[in-house]
């Protein structure tokens, strides 16, 4: 298959269309405006619909209507816009609607900046909106993986009837890399007989809803959602591991930060250090087993994030206090240099090789 050079944001659009998504509702915001621009150009060519919503709030509610009507549908934004979508995402989770939401993170809080950051980890993995729900959260580290995960995201969304968030950052959105559309769609996706197409077309009248005024009913519904998330945890963890066995220190990072960490590890290995890496690809479900495999005599796990420390909480939960944890982060849109990570590792290991 031929590879094509694409900017991350445009690759998101191309991947969605390749996955059969013909409906996009979005709003411009730096650094992901190329996503709606691409969709506005390409969707009419496949007979789809691009709607530039009046706000990110309106966009996620259009997603709700389209998803409830049985279509594959996507929206995208960056951190401040994703914050706006939380109400709608909670409604999608409660009504069990499949959809893909792309977050190209930027520095915050508030209006923040337009440079990349990873400050939405909590928002993405802890639900983000009101109530007890989770999203499947996938974190690509390069544009090829972005394409793969967007395409798989639509299948996972349909399989579990749940929203899927692709957590990228401004760097992945803007960089250009060669990609191929190689994801093989699943064959086991259920029929969407719950979707609204007019009751004449279905076996019953369909209602898309997240309201359950009887508390007993809502508790039952919550148990149903939790059972779903348990299945997701059982089946959908994704992680990349490198040299964890026998490592003196393990670096853990996701997305763009993980690529910088890999450069740092290469430098450290040249100097004789034994450093491993755990790169979560699914942030929910978090691949905690990978951390459980770290040997007891490992001297530490260094979490590196473009934030003041969010994923590190899940790392600590996974380690259960077995191994000391360390953190190195940049925030405000600053991107760490490999040298910073090298220095931090040397500081932790005290010069021991």
């Amino acid at each position, binding site marked *: 298959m031929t590879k094509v050079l694409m900017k991350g944001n445009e690759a998101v659009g191309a991947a969605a269309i390749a996955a059969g998504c013909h409906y996009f509702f979005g709003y411009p915001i730096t650094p992901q405006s190329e996503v709606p621009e691409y969709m506005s150009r390409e969707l009419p060519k496949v007979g789809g619909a691009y709607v530039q919503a*009046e706000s990110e*709030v*309106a966009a996620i509610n*259009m997603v*709700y*209507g389209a998803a*409830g*009507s049985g279509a594959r549908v996507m929206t995208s934004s960056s951190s401040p816009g994703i914050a706006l979508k939380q109400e709608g995402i909670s409604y999608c989770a409660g009504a069990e609607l499949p959809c893909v939401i792309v977050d190209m993170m930027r520095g915050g809080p508030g209006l923040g900046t337009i440079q990349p950051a990873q400050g939405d980890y909590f928002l993405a993995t802890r639900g983000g909106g009101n109530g007890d729900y989770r999203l499947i959260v996938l974190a690509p580290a390069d544009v090829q993986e972005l394409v793969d995960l967007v395409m798989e995201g639509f299948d996972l969304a349909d399989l579990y009837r749940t929203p899927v968030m692709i957590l990228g950052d401004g760097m992945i959105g803007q960089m250009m890399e060669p990609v191929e559309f190689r994801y093989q769609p699943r064959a086991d996706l259920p029929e969407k007989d719950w979707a609204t197409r007019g009751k004449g077309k279905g076996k019953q009248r369909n*209602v898309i809803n997240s309201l359950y005024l009887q508390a007993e009913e809502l508790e039952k519904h919550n148990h149903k959602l939790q059972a779903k998330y348990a299945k997701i945890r059982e089946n959908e963890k994704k992680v990349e591991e490198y040299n964890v066995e026998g490592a003196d220190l393990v670096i853990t990072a996701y997305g763009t930060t993980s690529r910088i960490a890999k450069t740092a590890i290469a430098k450290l290995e040249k100097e004789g250090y034994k450093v491993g890496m755990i790169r979560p690809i699914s942030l929910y479900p978090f691949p905690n087993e990978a951390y459980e495999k770290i040997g007891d005599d490992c001297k530490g796990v260094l979490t590196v994030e473009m934030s003041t420390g969010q994923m590190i909480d899940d790392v600590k939960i996974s380690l259960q206090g077995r191994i000391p944890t360390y953190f190195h982060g940049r925030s405000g849109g600053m991107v760490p240099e490999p040298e910073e990570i090298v220095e931090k590792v040397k500081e932790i290991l005290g010069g021991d090789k």
Partner: protein
Amino acid sequence: MAIVFEKTKGLTDKPTHYCPGCTHGIIHRLVAEVMEEMDLLDNAIGVAPVGCSVLAYDYFNVDMHEAAHGRAPAVATGIKRVHPENFVFTYQGDGDLASIGTAEIVHAAHRGEKFTTIFVNNAIYGMTGGQMAPTTLVGQKTTTSPYGRDEATTGKPIKMSELLATIDGAKFVERVAVNTPANIRKAKKAIKEAFKVQLEGKGFGIVEVLSTCPTNWGLTPVEAMKWLEKDMIPYYPLGNFKKPEEVE
């Protein structure tokens, strides 16, 4: 012997939770009757609001979506873009449409989205216990305007039909009332015309229905209808503000 009035198949068998004399019951019935008469029951998809009529998805005998407060026009946009051949409507109250959802209704009209909105204006927030609405009249006492609505700090009530009629994409805009049988029959005609505008692919349509809230107005159902006539209609004039040109 012929039946000249019976319950429409457009309503489910579930008895409504609405208060005695609440005009939601009348308006639901009109919408359901028109859908049945236009043979839309198998095809229609409706969007329920947040408000007293949040449970409308239990009463309309068609596929339904429950939307977040104010977002029904966005949800309807998503539905209609995926199913352009289906009949799509939203049913919204004054908090839903004229407060939190003002951006959504304005932009749906602006884009000319081809669905129809039934806007129930009863000058108050019913479900949450009778607070002031953007449509509450000056001087009207509510639980959050206990001294009467003060124009100086909260402005005059908003006239949504007039506002939306200025938008080109809104092809049918009419204000009706349901306080008398005569007005109810006129309201039904307006709803039917609005639905026709959608079926003919002409664009967005809205019927604003002046309604009562006996419970939160502190009036009997019969007194409430009189208040609608004496106090609401003078401020919110009935009539058509926009309709497509008749093609010869």
